[in-house]
């Protein structure tokens, strides 16, 4: 089955955007298609009008904040509370484990918000620690292969 995945990116430095690029490549290799959208260019309609699953890619800023470019989208979803029943989504969350209490909170906040709006997460949330030494785009791409299988996308 072919899926059209909308990848929404909240990033401070660009690392998360690079991760999204890599994951988009894997989705296309698997026969799906993907569109990357920086969150400042998205709105609640991006979710309600999505043709397929949505993949949240978010880093974490300060003590557990959504990066600047994702804050307006987060606030709009929170204010408008659209009904997202039927929407499937995945979450890639980047963080720094020196802040254990708020580790990966950028992605976790979106996860909790989308779930509260009735959307259904597919697969485990992927969390990557910037001090682990792991290349996040490689780990995320591996995670994406499993995520695609759970979505029912096969090469």
């Amino acid at each position: 089955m072919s899926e059209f995945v909308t990848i929404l990116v909240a990033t401070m430095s660009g690392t998360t955007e690079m991760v999204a690029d890599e994951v988009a490549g894997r989705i296309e290799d698997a026969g799906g298609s993907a569109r990357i959208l920086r969150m400042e260019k998205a709105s609640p309609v991006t979710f309600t009008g999505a043709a397929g699953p949505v993949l949240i890619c978010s880093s974490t800023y300060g003590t557990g904040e959504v990066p600047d470019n994702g804050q307006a989208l987060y606030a709009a979803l929170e204010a408008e509370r659209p009904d997202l029943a039927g929407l499937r989504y995945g979450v890639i969350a980047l963080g720094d484990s020196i802040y254990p209490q708020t580790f990966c909170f950028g992605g976790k906040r979106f996860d909790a918000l989308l779930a509260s709006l009735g959307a259904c997460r597919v697969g485990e949330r992927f969390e990557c620690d910037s001090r682990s030494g792991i290349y996040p785009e490689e780990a995320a791409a591996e995670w994406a292969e499993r995520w695609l299988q759970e979505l029912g996308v096969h090469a």
Partner: protein
Amino acid sequence: MERGVIVIGGGQAAARAAKAMRVAGYVGPITILSEEAHLPYERPALSKAMLLQPGAEAPQVLAEPDYATSAITLRTRCRAEAIDRTRHEVALCGGERLPYDRLLIATGSRNRPLTIDGMAAEQIFSLRTLDDGRRLARALKDRPALTVVGGGFIGLEVAASAAKLGCRVAVIEAADRLLPRLGSPEASAFVLDHHSRCGIDVRLGVRVVSGEGGRVRLSDGGDTAAEVVVAGVGVAPDTALADAAGLDCQDGILVDAFCRTSDPDIFAAGDVTRHYNPLLGRSLRLESWQNANAQADAAGRTIAGFPTPSAEIPWLWSDQGDLNLQAAGAPSSVERTVLRGDPSGGDGLTIFQLDGDRLVGGVTLNRGKEMPMIRRLLAQPELQLDPDHLADSAMPLRRLLPTREAA
């Protein structure tokens, strides 16, 4: 009795180092002495979100409950007056003396002051603290005509934010290009073009001569409207305490890669240091969020008993309105520049700086997603790179990293 660690300074490096000591297992007392009234916060927001949305809170370096759960004592509005190295004490304003086993100096830098003949000091703003940011945000509320003196990062960030707010904005830079310290004429040209298109009036190669009423006069005979002036004319490391205590300083407190000063019980981290970078093989001073964090982590672990060097390729970013600029490396000489992307196009530009066939620096302009790979390329200085590959947008940079297995 264990006297513990005292941290002088209340910024990114100070709070982060305290946290890093705890994460590394240090169990003794930790006290942060901050002159400011606020919890340590992230300064990058001051020139952007704090100006665009007055009332916005600056992100905190550590969440408030973390001070209690990590047993970090934060003393705000607390000014250290002197360091007594012999007695291992810090003298506070007011006469109190605090003993220490180990001391970390993270006093950051201070803005260079600007005075303009004929202009009241209240019209001239600078930006370092949250209180500075709030003052400037209030001053910009009525959309005054703004002249920014200094076309460096802070000046351009403020200029772009003010232009977004609807202010008429001029930028005065003494050098013949913006961001002269970046060392990339191509980046400077791109940045100039961006800001000019946003309606900012950039004047290069001129100085402010005097001010009168709501205008400043320039050295070329021109003038700009200036109901408010923002000074972005550089910073100096705040080494006063270290100097007075006799620690080795040279435009910054001299430290090794482990953040050790010339006194074995005193460490320093962040903007205030001139530190040895083992990747570059030389010492340098950096004013950046990344360096503050990296040195804080190294100092924190070293103080906790796990000597750890700070060894990262220098990296900084600057958000100027809709322009995201990132730069990595610290090139001392650039023989050749390779561009990826269209310098006049809307898709951003990546600039590679080469010395021979070795990559020594990189700048991304609205192409931040390439920066993680550039930083990895820079961390392998022996790498010989083909300029044609660097210039080819269709060639993923990750393919140029030889030590990686094929995906």
